[in-house]
């Protein structure tokens, strides 16, 4: 073997390979494969009985649930070993730190809730396929990779794993035009943005000579930033902005959210956003920390646009999934404010808010999901939600709670989250942005209240919805309700946890 190769072997040896950081993802992968295969080998079929029809159930959903639960356990295990075992692994391809672990938890929680909610749904809408659960798990695995990624390549492949999975999930109800149309739009725009993201990576690579986040930070720490680097940063912003749906890169999300099966929409609104934001924040808070003065103005504008457009556009929506899509755009704006604050406080607020946001959004989608009937999802606020409060008091109460939480009314998680973000913004002197945030959230009150108004104050004009709440979904909703209230009334520990998790973010090698 030639000496040069020897040299390369040393230069590119794998440093610190270990199972611990990738364990959750590994578990998910494992169970994902199992979910796909077991049924085939056991029963030779991967389609479970639809709602109302008899037939031996398939195992995939339960395997998926177990897998997610185990993965969550693993995350907990990671959290315990964080102190000693923190740091980069696999030559820095992944980094195990509080930030990543916290968000892994959020992602898996979102996945878990999605699964709980989706089982009844997918039977009702006849997409009760093993592949469905397989894809959810794989996408979740991709998210975990993104969350922990310490290298642009890892981020990229993780992102793709997640995205491709979600593209397919979006179009999973392929017998429905909207589902497919959603998939098409998501895919075209997704691939398009991938192109830019990739080119951004290329430029950054060119400027910094490496894909390693830490390495890049060291390389670019010496100002002034080269124009190539700036162009790269710009394109990376674009890539992330697309994934988390910031204006003007948001246009796909309303259509996709509306078209996708409700549980998938929820999954997108929470999991995908979390993963996207995780990478976004990690890259900008740590790697491009030194360039803050360059990227903050841009993000400032994006945040302002996002909050305004998201909230304003949501006002006239009647389809609740679409409304929630715009609302999640708006919330992306709020989260961005936390990033703009560019402080540990901001990052902590960001973590806390993501947790709160995941709970309340999942909850809201949970209600949307159980509202559905065979063949229709009943998503019209004015028609389907009118007066349900008096037929399904608990369901309506839960929905109202989530709506108020999304509005930011105490004592809910949403309020404390907003409080934290506002604190960070004000503390960093971004008072105008803070004011814009609260003003837009007043606008948001209008459309969130519309749901409550419809549920409690309008009388139903259609035949009553025969929505029975599957046990699993009930559990999911219960978790969401308890979470939203818990985080709202006793936020202490959570805020602490978020704070603690932050400390490690900047602790990249």
């Amino acid at each position, binding site marked *: 073997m030639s000496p040069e190769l020897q040299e*390369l072997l040393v230069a590119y040896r794998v440093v610190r390979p270990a199972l611990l950081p990738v364990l959750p993802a590994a578990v998910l992968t494992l169970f994902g494969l199992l979910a796909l295969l077991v049924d085939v080998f056991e029963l030779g079929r991967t389609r479970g009985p639809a709602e109302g029809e008899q037939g031996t159930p398939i195992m995939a959903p339960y395997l998926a649930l177990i897998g997610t639960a185990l993965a969550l356990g693993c995350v907990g295990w990671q959290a315990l070993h964080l102190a000693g075992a923190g740091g980069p692994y696999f030559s820095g391809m992944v980094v195990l730190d509080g930030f990543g672990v916290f968000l892994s938890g959020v992602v898996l929680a979102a996945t878990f809730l999605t699964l709980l909610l989706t089982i009844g749904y997918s039977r009702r809408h006849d997409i009760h*396929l093993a592949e469905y659960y397989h*894809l959810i798990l794989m996408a979740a695995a991709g998210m975990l990779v993104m969350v922990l990624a310490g290298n642009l390549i890892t981020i990229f492949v993780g992102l793709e794993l997640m995205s491709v999975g979600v593209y397919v999930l979006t179009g999973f109800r392929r017998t429905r035009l909207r589902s497919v149309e959603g998939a098409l739009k998501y895919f075209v725009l997704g691939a398009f943005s991938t192109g830019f993201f990739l080119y951004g990576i290329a430029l950054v690579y060119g400027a910094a000579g490496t894909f390693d986040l830490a390495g890049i930070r060291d390389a670019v720490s010496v100002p002034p930033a080269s124009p190539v680097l700036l162009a790269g940063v710009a394109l990376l912003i674009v890539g992330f902005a697309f994934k988390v749906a910031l204006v003007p890169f948001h246009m796909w999300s309303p259509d996709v959210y509306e078209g996708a099966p409700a549980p998938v929409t929820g999954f997108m609104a929470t999991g995908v956003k979390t993963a996207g934001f995780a990478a976004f924040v990690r890259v900008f808070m740590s790697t491009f920390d030194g360039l803050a003065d360059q990227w903050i103005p841009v993000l400032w504008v994006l945040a302002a646009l996002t909050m305004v457009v998201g909230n304003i556009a949501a006002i006239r929506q009647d389809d609740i999934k679409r409304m929630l899509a715009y609302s999640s755009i708006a919330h992306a704006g709020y989260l961005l404010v936390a990033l703009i604050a560019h402080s540990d406080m901001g990052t902590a607020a960001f973590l806390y808010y993501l947790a709160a946001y995941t709970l309340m959004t999942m909850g809201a989608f949970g209600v949307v999901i159980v509202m559905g009937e065979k063949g229709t999802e009943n998503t019209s606020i004015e028609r389907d939600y009118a007066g349900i409060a008096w037929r399904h008091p608990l369901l309506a109460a839960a929905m109202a709670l989530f709506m108020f939480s999304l509005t930011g009314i105490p004592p809910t998680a949403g309020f404390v989250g907003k409080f934290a973000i506002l604190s960070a913004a004000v503390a960093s002197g971004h008072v105008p942005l803070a004011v814009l945030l609260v003003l837009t959230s007043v606008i948001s009150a209008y459309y969130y209240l519309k749901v409550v108004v419809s549920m409690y104050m309008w009388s139903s004009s259609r035949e009553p919805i025969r929505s029975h709440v599957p046990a699993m979904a009930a559990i999911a909703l219960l978790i969401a309700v308890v979470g939203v209230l818990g985080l709202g009334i006793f936020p202490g520990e959570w805020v602490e946890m978020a704070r603690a998790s932050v400390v490690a973010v900047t602790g990249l090698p």
Partner: protein
Amino acid sequence: MTGVAIAFWVLAVVAVLCSLLVVTSRNPVASVLYLVVTFFCLAGLFVTLHSHFLAAIQVIVYAGAIMVLFLFVVMLLNLGTPQWFDVATTPLTAVALVLGVGFVAALAAAGLGDFEPSVVGPAAGVPPDVLGSTEAIATALYSAYYLPFLVTALLLLVAMVGAVVLARRER
């Protein structure tokens, strides 16, 4: 003018022309074929950059696999004929061109034209031919870039499953 230079110019011009034809020609089949040509040109450019292995992959995977897939779908849906709707005169075309110009201008301003690497990689000393060789790439892929490699594998699996799920006929 060295051979490399000639090769570059020829390949570059052809690549640009073909890609232009890809996005302009009315007939998808034609587009596919132009795209194949473009890929070949890129493979050639890789060769001029001494990464023969990638050139090979480019030809095999892209021209060989992906393009066939495209062609297959085109035929399957028999879109082989010009599509009435697909005139490249969208009202947005003008905007698109302006923006495109702006984009190129920006990248130019970023100094791509006269880019000089400001950093040296870990393999700086290694001669290009070795760097582009299969062994070298394999070395990196199976050690440092081992994890993303695994993830890519999963990605392909997911894509496979997804394609099956989506394209499968109704039962």
